[in-house]
């Protein structure tokens, strides 16, 4: 059973200036005070400015940026996306502006809002990860780092950091020493036992974990006989993977004491509630934003309504509350 005390601090953050959210929705996640437990997932909300006409960032618990690497990356050739039943595959190839341009051109915009900024980072070697983390250390306006470990370790033969417990531990330990920011480790679902990876992240010093990243998939066009993505394989996201995500959040949350950020196919408040009950202290909206640009703020409203309707003193009361067995 998850330790409820780790998930939130109902009394605390409501008192912080500028962080008052709707009653009972504020959450302390891995040392980051969120006005509500709804974030937007990395890679599905750009750098935060693109949807300014549709989404008031002040309404969100936080924004997780597109993954940032040390240098800019051009990404993969098109086609980069293909629709699948109730989901989509993407092979963006981690296109991003690079650390420097992020700090100079993207972060200042995000800092104008009363929301938390979590920077998603990645690299192709431990050194590159460390360089990005160091480059963000002490930077005002960056509230936490989310480490995307679904990236092949080029130096050690291309095995993903996130699919090897030892590599994951090593990476997280190094990063923990390179930053003053809370460290959220984003787990890959492409593993056998997710609990092992959750524990490895915790043991190595992670302040929180997030999951799930996309599930590796492939789609082939029988007419051209080619993969529908130029890259061959891609990452599956969207409602199709929600049952997998809920199960993994449930398994991971029971294995660790650090808080869990749940995501994977969330469209509506009902979907998000599955993640809270499974043990997530906060949730992120990903692919849903493509379908409904206002998916994240709509989710905040939907969850507030649920909390009110069920007369819950605080949304944290749901965390890990799934009733299994015949209780």
């Amino acid at each position, binding site marked *: 059973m998850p330790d409820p005390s780790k998930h939130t601090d109902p009394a605390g953050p409501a008192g912080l200036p500028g962080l008052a959210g709707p009653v009972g929705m504020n959450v302390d996640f891995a040392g980051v005070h969120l006005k509500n437990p709804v974030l937007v997932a990395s*890679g599905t909300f*750009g750098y935060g400015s693109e949807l300014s006409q*549709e989404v008031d960032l002040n309404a969100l618990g936080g924004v997780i940026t597109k993954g940032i690497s040390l240098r800019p990356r051009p990404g*993969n*050739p098109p086609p980069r*996306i293909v*629709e699948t039943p*109730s989901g*989509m595959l993407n092979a963006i190839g981690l296109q991003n502006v690079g650390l420097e341009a992020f700090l100079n051109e993207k972060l200042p915009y995000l800092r104008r809002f009363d929301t938390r900024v979590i920077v998603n980072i990645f690299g192709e070697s431990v050194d590159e990860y460390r360089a990005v983390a160091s480059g963000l250390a002490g930077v005002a306006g960056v509230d936490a780092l989310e480490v995307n470990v679904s990236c092949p370790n080029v130096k050690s033969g291309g095995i993903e950091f996130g699919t090897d417990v030892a590599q994951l531990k090593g990476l997280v330990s190094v990063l923990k020493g390179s930053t003053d920011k809370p460290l959220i480790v984003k787990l890959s679902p492409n593993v056998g036992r997710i609990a092992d990876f959750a524990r490895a992240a915790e043991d190595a010093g992670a302040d929180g974990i997030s999951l799930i990243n996309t599930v590796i998939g492939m789609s082939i066009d029988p007419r051209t006989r080619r993969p529908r993505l130029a890259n061959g394989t891609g990452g599956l996201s969207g409602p199709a993977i929600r049952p997998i995500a809920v199960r993994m959040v449930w398994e991971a949350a029971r294995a660790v004491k650090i808080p869990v950020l749940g995501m994977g196919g969330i469209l509506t408040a009902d979907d998000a509630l599955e993640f809270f009950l499974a043990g997530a202290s906060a949730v992120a909206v990903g692919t849903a934003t493509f379908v409904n640009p*206002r998916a994240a703020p709509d989710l905040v409203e939907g969850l507030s309504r649920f909390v009110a309707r069920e007369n819950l003193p605080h949304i944290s009361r749901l965390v890990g509350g799934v009733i299994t067995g015949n209780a």
Partner: protein
Amino acid sequence: MRTHRAKIRERRDRTGPYRSLVLDAPALAEAARPGQFVMVRVSETTDPLLRRPFSLFRADGPAGTADILFRIMGRGTSMLDLLRAGDAIDVVGPLGRPFPSLPGQEIVLVGGGVGIPPLFFYAETLRRLEPARTVHVIMGGRTDGDLVVREEFERLGTLVQASTDDGSAGHAGVVTDLLQPFLGPARAILACGPAPMLRAVSEMAARSNTPCWVSVEERMACGLGVCMGCAVPVRSDHGPSYRLACTDGPVFEAREVLW
């Protein structure tokens, strides 16, 4: 706010597999510029999950209507085809950068199939603002049914030429067979259609120093610049790179695009 719940005011069968919808969407109609597009939700379920991009085909600010014209291609467009006047759909737009306004020049619009609708919007808009401007239209398709809105173009007073692959209407061949007489620095080409056509048009334009813009089609998940799914390979100062069809485009200067 670019999200609209739009009532379908009118639905029309066009030639062949083409259909058009008149949408009640005042804010969209007011903001829309030729070359821009909308993302349409074709189902309220999760299959198909993603919105579909369609160019704006017309927009009438005072009337509060915006139109799209589409070809039935696959599942999404087949579902759109089931809608009737009175039904409501969920539309995001206007999105993307419009075609440039080109003061003074003779305009040459080159379109194929589903690339024709945004060119019609351009021609209609230009006719309203500058009735005297010369506008040439070269349209192509596989067969005569693909020469959609040909009559509407003629009624606008544009000078229309057409080609079909099968020779069922106009010149038997491709649009570029007809383009030669219209090249040169004094004119400007705006093209929209399948990639091979755009590449051929771009090359002819480059060789003849004809200013040229193309509206490209790429698979889109969001249409909003947040997924980075719609990469278009372009020339840049630092060598080849990608730009986003949805926010940097869909209209690009032809010489920028790497085919």
